C-alpha cells in the first residue's frame, strides 16, 4: 500500500478537462483529485475443491464497498474544443470477504456440511484512461466531457483453498481459515468522465470529477477448472486542484 502511494506520487496526475485553444485559455491542464469509488460488485468466486471423493463447492464474495481513490491526469488541446487526455486512478483496500463452502461427509455421499467464515482479501486497481476530450469553457468555469479506453491493472487476492475442522461423527464442520493467492491481470475497459473546474486564477482552480469505468476480469482458480468473474471499476467521484499552463 505504502509503495503504491509512493508510486502514485511519482506518476503524477493526469488530465481531465482540456480546454479549447482560446485567446485567454492555457493549452495544457494538470489535475489531482481525491475521492471515492463506488463499486457495484467486487468479486464473486465460485469453484470446487475435491474432498472425500466428491466436489466441495466454494463461493467467496466481497461485499459492495466504497473505496478511497486517487486520481491525476494531464490533458492538452489538439483542435478547437477537442483534446486528448491521460489520467491514472488508483484504489486499494484490504477487507473481509465472505467464504462459504459445502464439504462432503467422509462416510456418506451427497451429505454436504456447510462452513462459512471471513477471509482478508487485498484488492488494488491501477487504471490508465486514454481519453478524447471535449471542453466547454467560460470566464470562470470549464466543463469537459471525455471518454475512451481504460487499461485496468488489477491485483486481486483470490480464495484458493478452505481449511476446516471436523470431529467424529463429522456431521458438522467448522470453518478454520481460507488460503488466498494474489492474481494479477491487465484488462482493457472503458470510461466516461465529466469534469467541472472553477478557475480561481489564470493558472489554477478547483474541480470536481465524475467518472464511470468498467472492465470485466476473469480468473481461473482451483486448478483452472472454474472461472471467477469480477467487474472492476465503477462510479468514481472526486475533487481537487487544477493547474493550467
Amino acid at each position: 500500500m505504502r509503495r503504491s502511494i509512493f508510486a502514485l506520487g511519482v506518476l503524477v496526475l493526469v488530465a481531465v478537462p482540456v480546454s479549447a485553444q482560446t485567446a485567454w485559455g492555457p493549452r495544457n491542464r494538470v489535475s489531482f483529485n481525491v475521492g471515492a469509488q463506488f463499486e457495484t460488485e467486487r468479486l464473486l468466486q465460485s469453484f470446487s475443491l475435491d474432498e472425500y471423493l466428491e466436489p466441495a463447492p466454494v463461493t467467496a464474495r466481497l461485499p459492495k464497498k466504497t473505496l478511497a481513490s486517487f486520481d491525476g491526469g494531464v490533458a492538452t488541446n489538439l483542435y478547437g474544443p477537442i483534446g486528448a487526455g491521460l489520467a491514472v486512478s488508483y484504489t486499494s483496500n484490504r477487507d473481509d470477504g465472505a467464504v462459504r463452502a459445502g464439504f462432503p461427509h467422509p462416510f456418506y455421499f451427497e451429505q454436504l456440511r456447510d462452513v462459512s467464515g471471513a477471509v482478508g482479501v487485498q484488492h488494488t486497481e491501477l487504471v490508465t484512461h486514454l481519453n478524447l476530450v471535449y471542453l466547454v469553457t467560460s470566464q470562470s468555469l470549464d466543463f469537459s466531457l471525455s471518454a475512451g479506453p481504460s487499461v485496468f491493472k488489477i491485483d486481486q487476492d483470490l480464495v484458493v483453498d478452505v481449511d476446516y475442522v471436523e470431529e467424529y461423527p463429522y456431521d458438522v464442520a467448522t470453518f478454520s481459515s481460507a488460503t488466498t493467492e494474489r492474481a494479477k491481470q491487465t484488462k482493457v475497459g472503458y470510461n466516461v468522465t465529466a469534469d467541472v473546474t472553477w478557475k480561481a486564477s489564470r493558472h489554477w482552480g478547483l474541480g470536481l470529477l465524475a467518472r464511470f469505468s468498467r472492465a470485466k476480469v476473469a480468473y481461473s482458480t482451483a486448478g483452472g477448472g472454474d472461472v471467477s468473474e469480477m467487474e472492476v471499476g465503477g462510479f468514481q467521484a472526486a475533487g481537487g486542484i487544477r493547474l493550467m499552463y
Partner: protein
Amino acid sequence: MKTIRDRGRGNAAAKLSAHAAAVLGASLLVFSGGLAGGQEPVRARSQGVMAWGIALGPWASRVDVMLGDGSLDFGRLQADTMIDGRVHERLGQYHDGLPVFGGQLVRQLDGRRTVSISGRYFDDIDIPTTDAGIAVGEASEVAERAAGLGARAEPPILGILPRGNRSVLVYRTTVRGPWDVRTYFVNASTGAVEDSASQIRHQETPAVGRGIGVLGDQKKVSSDELAGSFFAVDLLRPAVSVTFAFNGGEGRLNSFLESGLLFDSDIAESSSNTWGDSAVVDAHVYQGWVYDYYFKRFGRRGLDDANVELLSIVHPLARSQASLYPPELVGTFINNAAYLHPGLMFYGDGDGQAFDYFAGALDVIAHEMTHGVMSFTSDLVYRDESGALNEAFSDVMAVGAEFFHLSGRGGPQKGPNFLIGEDVTLVAPGFVRSLQNPSVVGDPDHYSLRQFIGTDIDDGGVHFNSAIVGHAFYLAVAGGTNRVSGISVQGVGIANIERMERIFYRAFTFHLTPLAQFSDARAATLLAAAELYGSGSPERVQLQRAWDAVGVQ
C-alpha cells in the same frame, strides 16, 4: 485443503503400528477376556426383581445387606448415556465366595440415591460342599473331549450353576473347537457335562433358492493407506474397525478358530482404494454405520461403550464351495452371520441361492453387533427365553438402524422396514423374520404360541420365540391388532420410532440381567419408558398395551 480431525493420522510407521495393534487386539480379544464373562445356559427358578418407586425400599436395603455379607459383589459400572447423572452397577451373586452363574442384579443410582434394582437372584442355593471333587485339569479334559478333536479349554472357574430346583457345583470353561466356541459347565463332583452353550450368535439358517449378487450401491469406504496400498481399517471413527477377508479357504478359517490369530495378510486390501469386493465394502461400511447409529442415537461408544475394536470377517468359507461342506457348516459359515464375543463378526457368503452375501444387509450387521452390545451389558444367556430376548433386542436394534440410516436416503435397499434380512434373502418370503407379521414365516406372534423352551431345538427357540418380543416392539411403534389376542394398539407412530428404540435399548443395556425372561423384558421396558418419557406418557401406555397384545405379562 487442510482438514483437522480429532483422530490424528500418523506417518506410515504409525499406521503400521495401528494395523499391528488392531491385529494383536483381535488375537487377544477373540478368545480371551470376553469369554470369561460368557453365557451361562442356566435353566432354574430364580427370583425376578424389578423394583423401583414404592417397591424399591425393601430391595434397596436388602442389596446393601447382601453387599455387606458377600452375597453380592460389585461387577461392571456403566455410565448412563441417556439420563445425566445416572450410573448402573452390575452386582454379581456369590454363595460362600463362589460365583452363582447367571445371578445378577443391576442397581441404578442417581448420585447416591438408588433409583431401581432389577435382575435375577437365586434365593435357594443349597449345595452340600464347595470343595470340588475333581481337579481343574480334569474339568478341562472333559470339556475338550465334549467339544471334539483339537479343542482347547480356557482355565475353568469354579462356581454354582442353578438347575431347576437344585444347585450344582460346576467348573465353567470356554472351549475353542474346530468349528465352534462353546462354554461348558462341568459338574465338579461327577465330571459330567451339565450344560453348554455356543458363543457364536448367529441368525437363522434359511430356506434355499436362487439369487443375484450384492446390491451394487456406491458407498464410501473408510480405509487406511500404507505403503501405497489401502487396507480396510477404519481409522476415522473412535473405535478402530477392521475387515478381514478369508477368501473362502477352509484351512484359514479352521486355523483361526483353533488359534484365534488374525494376521495383517487377512486384512482386506485394495491397491487403488477402489474396492471391488462387495462383501468387504458392505461389511466394512455398515459396521461403521452401526457404530454411528449407536453413538448418535444412544451416545454409546461401540460395543462395550469404551470403543473396543470392531472386527469383521467376510468370506469365511467360499460360496462356490458350499456344496462340498456338510449342512451344519454351510448353515454356520456360508448361509449365516454370527457374532463372537468380544467384537468379532462373521458374514457368510450366502450360497447364492437362498442367500446373498450377508454383509449386504445393514440390518444383519446391526443385529450381529447388537449381540456384542448385549454381551457387554445384560449378557442375556443364549438359550430359552433369555436367548429369545437376546435375539429380539438384536432385531429391534437392527430395525432401528435401518430407519436411522435408510429413511429418505434412496438406494437399492428395501428398507427401512420391520423385516430382518430382506436385502440378502433370495427366496420367498424374501426375509428371515418379520416383526410386523411374524406368522408369515411361521414364527409366533403371541406368548401362548412359544415353543422349544427347554429343548435343544434352536437353543430353546431363541430365534423362533424372539418374534413375540419383536412383534410387541412393532405394535408399540406402528400400531395394529394382534392376530391371536385381538388386542389393538395405536402405537406411537413410525415417526416416533426413535423413542421406542431408546426404551428397548435402555432396557437391555441397563436393566436386564443374563437370565431375564419375557416378563422381565416387559417390566424393564416399561421402567425405561417411565424413566425416559414419564409414567403416564403415550410411549409407556402404548408399550404396555403392546405387551398385553402379545400376551406377555
